[in-house]
């Protein structure tokens, strides 16, 4: 079965007075036919890998083999006290999301959430909100479950693949998931969590997937950071009572429509956008020739 609407979940949550995370845990128990304990411990394993990807990521100082990324989380954390305008919560969430992105591109072990290229946003947002609100591990796990409904519905109605629907479907969805998780952890209602996701996804529509040289580095890594900050803003707006005029189910349909309209040059093919700039092409040519030149031809034997 695929989940094509958030509406039944909102109705159920309201009728039973439960949060989105709670409803999703019950849903998972039902489809897996296992106990609540097993469900919680399975998500606990996912969370453990997420935490380890943050801790490893924010320590990275080395540049990647392409030279395009690496060390930016460290720079941001180091300079945050003297030079920050936004303050420590935003700086922390951005550096953590960038850290996971850098860890992924340096062959670290991450959780695709929903993809490897967008794997920084959900862990960074959940970690930062939980730290700030001193949330328990159980609340964190509920937050992750809350985020899953958003991702599943987007995946069923539109896509969570940059090659099919552009980066809106990867980072946009990950940020919408993160916004819902943040509201859940802060104690918000199911409606508020889904509303935060709607606010976030609306503001990611149309994002191109145009990675330089086809590598998961530029613009992917820093985009994880900036979208993690936006997810916190969307969660705060929703918790304050601001409603998205367009409900989530309509936003995901809009994302699907826009995704279908997007040209293939900006769907992970690296033929348009940033990948096709002078800088982008320069990196691509240099990487391809240096990669190919390092290999001896089989026919030279």
């Amino acid at each position, binding site marked *: *079965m*695929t*989940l094509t609407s958030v509406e039944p979940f909102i109705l159920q949550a309201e009728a039973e007075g439960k949060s989105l995370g709670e409803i*999703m845990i019950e*849903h*998972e128990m039902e*489809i*897996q036919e*296992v106990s609540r304990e*097993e469900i919680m411990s*399975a*998500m606990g*394993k*996912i969370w453990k*890998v997420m935490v380890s990807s943050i801790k490893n990521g924010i320590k990275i100082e080395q540049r*990647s*083999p*392409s030279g395009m990324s690496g060390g930016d989380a460290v720079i941001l954390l180091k300079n945050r006290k003297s030079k920050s305008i936004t303050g420590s919560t935003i700086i922390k969430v951005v550096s953590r999301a960038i850290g996971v992105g850098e*860890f*992924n*591109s*340096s*062959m*670290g*072990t*991450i*959780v*695709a*959430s*929903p993809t*490897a*290229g967008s*794997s920084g946003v*959900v862990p960074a947002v959940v970690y930062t909100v939980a730290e700030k609100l001193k949330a328990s591990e159980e609340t964190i796990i509920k937050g*992750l*479950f809350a*985020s*899953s409904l958003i*991702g*599943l519905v987007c*995946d*069923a109605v539109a896509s*969570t693949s940059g090659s099919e629907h552009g980066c809106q479907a990867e980072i946009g969805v990950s940020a919408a*998931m993160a916004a819902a998780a943040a509201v859940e952890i802060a104690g918000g209602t199911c409606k508020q969590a889904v509303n935060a996701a709607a606010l976030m996804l609306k503001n990611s529509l149309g994002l191109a997937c145009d990675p330089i*040289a*086809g*590598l*998961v*580095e530029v613009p992917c890594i820093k985009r994880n950071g900036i979208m993690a900050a936006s997810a916190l803003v969307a969660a705060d707006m929703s918790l304050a009572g601001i409603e998205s005029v367009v409900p989530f189910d309509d936003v995901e349909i809009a994302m699907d429509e826009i995704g279908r309209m997007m040209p293939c040059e900006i769907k992970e093919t690296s033929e348009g956008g940033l990948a096709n700039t002078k800088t982008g092409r320069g990196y691509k040519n240099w*990487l*391809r020739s*240096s*990669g*190919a030149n*390092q*290999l*001896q*031809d*089989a*026919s030279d034997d």
Partner: protein
Amino acid sequence: MADDSAFRILGPIMTGPSSSHTAGAVRIGRTARLLYGKEPKKVTVFFHGSFAETWKGHGSDKAVIGGLLGFKTFDERIKIADELAKKAEIDIQFKRIRLGANYHPNSIKIVIEDPEQPTEIIAESVGGGDIVIREILGFATEITGNEVTLILRHKDFIGTLSKITGLISEYNLNIVSLCSKDIPREDIAMTTIEIEEQAPAELEAKLAKIKGMDLVRILPKLTEGEEMF
């Protein structure tokens, strides 16, 4: 996994950065290792198409080495697989190859050099970490690893196939697909059989005893070890 499971959207746990150029490459290396059956000592890896150009940015070399060491896609040691192989004194060379237009742009050929047991595969990384094994020891195959796969090379005797399927049914295993091809004039055939569940080790031993059988391997499902429950 169920379409509406949270773990489909929060997961899999994997080693970055790319499902096709990293996770797929790990799986191709691991398949070669499983086919060979033990730790190889001397290996040549040939990158075709996109792998020959972008391997460095995606860590495809370390990914293949990790696979050859028997690692799964989420193993944290993939990052240092090259160092681990050096320590284990495994000689792994990387070369560029042009396999031709009939091969998928993301293809890898792996040759494990061992005069007693030469092993050679050509495999494609087709996206999302999925792979297809196109050739084993020169025989055309179409193995995806979605199921447990028996790989059997044997003399082309009449009745061999019925002996093989007879043994499989003895263990109450359901056959999903079966493909058998011989090389004309060479009197040798390759049979690949997909079954639903992991086969007991005894089956492997019994298959090996069939007259004319010279290679028996049972490849587990590609996603073995990734189950959440």
